[in-house]
């Protein structure tokens, strides 16, 4: 009896296999483990969770607020829930949202959802992400994304914005470059959306033409220059330095903090070594951009002398008398591009409120920088940062007490808003 049933079942199975193999030729088989696993990997590379998961909440259930100076935008629920998630969406609708910024019912999404970058991904990769999202726990959680006040809530204005700043289309490989380089470019410019933070933005929030990856202010942070600039960029970093940073969050120059710590934790530390190396190879090929090294401020300058005294008293114990740091524990400040960016926001911020460096599987200890807000007044913090930016061969514009005062207020507001 049993064998009879089996015999009947076999041809049916064969038929299913044939059908599914035929389907795969056009679109990936969304049920296959490989596709789902690949989708999980690409969703990690694209860091969808950064915005669509509330800290401590259900994965991808949305609801987290992205605060903007004009109001709040909530990241929607992208679990497969039929009513409140994307369970009922067709693949085309999903691709249209992720790659073209056109949401359900044809609405225009705001580019806080980085479709301008995801547009460079292949359709197959995006469908794989969908296949993966179909496997996560559906969560019933209705999110009304657009909380912006009038007139910012008028989505139609995005038509004009898209026309100006959005270049839709898949990534075009450069045949003159190696396969590795092309893989790196594909990831950096697409899924990983590194430029969202590292490319300077114009007043409209569009990428500034010709200044890709030259460093950009984020609110109360500064994402540094990643071009081949030897002064403020990655000109002196080796491919291995970059790989180590993206994998473990630290290298002989720096330890990631703030938004970069999250990008490392959620995304880059989970990529394969081959992909990290490809990204590093691509980054190392970026021609030096940005500004040339300025003249360092003289060590006879009163701010430098005062800053030096504070440095010797308060900072040298960890960062070393010569700013040399200790690899993996205390970032170096001398010859460190991060310290010599045009804007000192990240430095002021870290000295004021302290910072917990990233902890990754590869480097599980996240050392902390103590907060100095309670003991150093604005003028002292300004001078010590001016000093580290111009000592030991470093060179960067001075920091004023006013800059520090503004940051102090902004950070206190942020700390109050945090739950």
């Amino acid at each position: 009896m049993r064998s009879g049933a089996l015999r009947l079942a076999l041809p049916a199975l064969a038929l299913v296999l044939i059908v599914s193999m035929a389907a795969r030729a056009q679109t990936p088989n969304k049920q296959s483990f490989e596709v789902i696993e690949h989708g999980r990997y690409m969703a990690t590379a694209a860091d969808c969770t950064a915005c669509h998961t509330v800290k401590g909440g259900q994965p991808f259930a949305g609801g987290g607020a992205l605060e903007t100076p004009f109001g709040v935008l909530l990241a929607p629920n992208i679990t497969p829930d039929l009513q409140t998630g994307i369970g009922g969406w067709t693949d085309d609708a999903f691709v249209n949202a992720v790659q073209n910024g056109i949401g359900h019912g044809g609405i225009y999404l705001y580019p806080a959802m980085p479709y301008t970058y995801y547009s460079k991904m292949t359709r197959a990769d995006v469908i794989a992400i969908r296949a993966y999202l179909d496997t996560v726990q559906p969560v019933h959680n209705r999110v009304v994304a657009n909380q912006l006040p009038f007139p910012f809530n008028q989505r139609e204005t995005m038509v004009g914005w898209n026309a100006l700043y959005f270049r839709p289309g898949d990534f075009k490989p450069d045949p003159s470059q190696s396969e590795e380089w092309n893989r790196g470019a594909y990831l950096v410019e697409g899924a990983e959306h590194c430029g969202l933070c590292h490319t300077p933005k114009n007043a409209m929030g569009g990428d500034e033409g010709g200044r890709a990856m030259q460093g950009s202010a984020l609110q109360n942070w500064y994402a540094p220059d990643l071009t081949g600039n030897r002064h403020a960029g990655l000109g002196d970093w080796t491919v291995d330095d970059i790989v180590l940073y993206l994998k473990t969050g630290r290298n002989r120059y720096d330890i990631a903090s703030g938004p970069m710590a999250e990008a490392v934790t959620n995304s880059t530390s989970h990529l394969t070594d081959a992909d990290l190396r490809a990204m590093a190879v691509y980054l190392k090929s970026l021609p030096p951009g940005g500004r040339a090294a300025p003249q360092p401020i003289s060590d006879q300058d009163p701010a430098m002398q005062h800053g030096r005294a504070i440095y010797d008293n308060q900072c040298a114990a960890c960062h070393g008398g010569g700013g040399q740091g200790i690899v993996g524990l205390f970032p170096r400040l001398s010859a460190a591009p991060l310290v010599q960016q045009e804007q000192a926001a990240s430095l002021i911020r870290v000295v004021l409120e302290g910072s917990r460096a990233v902890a990754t599987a590869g480097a599980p200890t996240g050392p902390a920088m103590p907060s100095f807000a309670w003991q150093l007044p604005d003028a002292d913090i300004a001078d010590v940062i001016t000093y580290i930016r111009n000592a030991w061969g470093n060179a960067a514009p001075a920091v004023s007490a006013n800059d520090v005062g503004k940051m102090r207020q902004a950070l206190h507001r942020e700390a109050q808003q945090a739950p």
Partner: protein
Amino acid sequence: MSSHPRVPGHADPGRSTMVTRRHALLPSTALLLVAPETRAEILPGGTGMPWRPFAGHPPEVVKPGPWVFFTPEEGAAVEALVDRLIPPDPETPGGKDCGCAVFIDRELAGGYGTASGIYMSPPFLPATPEQGLQAPLAPAQFYRSMLAALDQFCRAAYAGKTFAQLPDGEKDQIITRMEDGSLQLQGTVAKPFFEILLRDTRQGFFADPVYGGNRDMAAWKMIGFPGARYDYRDWVERHNERYPHPPISIAGG
């Protein structure tokens, strides 16, 4: 939600004003200014210790000012005593100007004064030093009673003058007799009081300035102690060189 791209191009409020004038494209800017609200949290996935912005337990710094425990008369007597135990010289201020009396006043007003950490019940027996204080009086009461006894002794022996009003030579004579055990104050041998006073004065002189003594780190400068620094790796290999950095307090600076 974990934080993500915060606001390309938005650090500068001047810019947003500029933006508001260009109505057609307004929202886009808003959008790129993404500033998720919960940013500085424990990093997920990491095994790092918990961390909060502006974390820290700043030390409470004693401010000079009115006496907290002493009466004005007691304060004057203690200032006079500490200034003879550590007299000023041309290079270093004395115990009084270094704040030793302030240090003692503040510690007597706190847990030390009430012996809050010490077993203070009888029996009180002759004992070895290891067996600790063998007296019914906590330091605050002890100081108060001995200062009152010293005051009575001085007024009787020196024509109504208080200890603080005596010339230095006579102060030193009294202190010398307290130390060698030959002086009784109201029937109590003064030597134990001398010993406690000397110890507390030294502590006030050399303790971190946050406790009220060692003003301007004068004592540390005198002996070349660099204070609350905690890393000398840069100096381990440098011999026969003077360490150039001034002392610092645990309050910084």
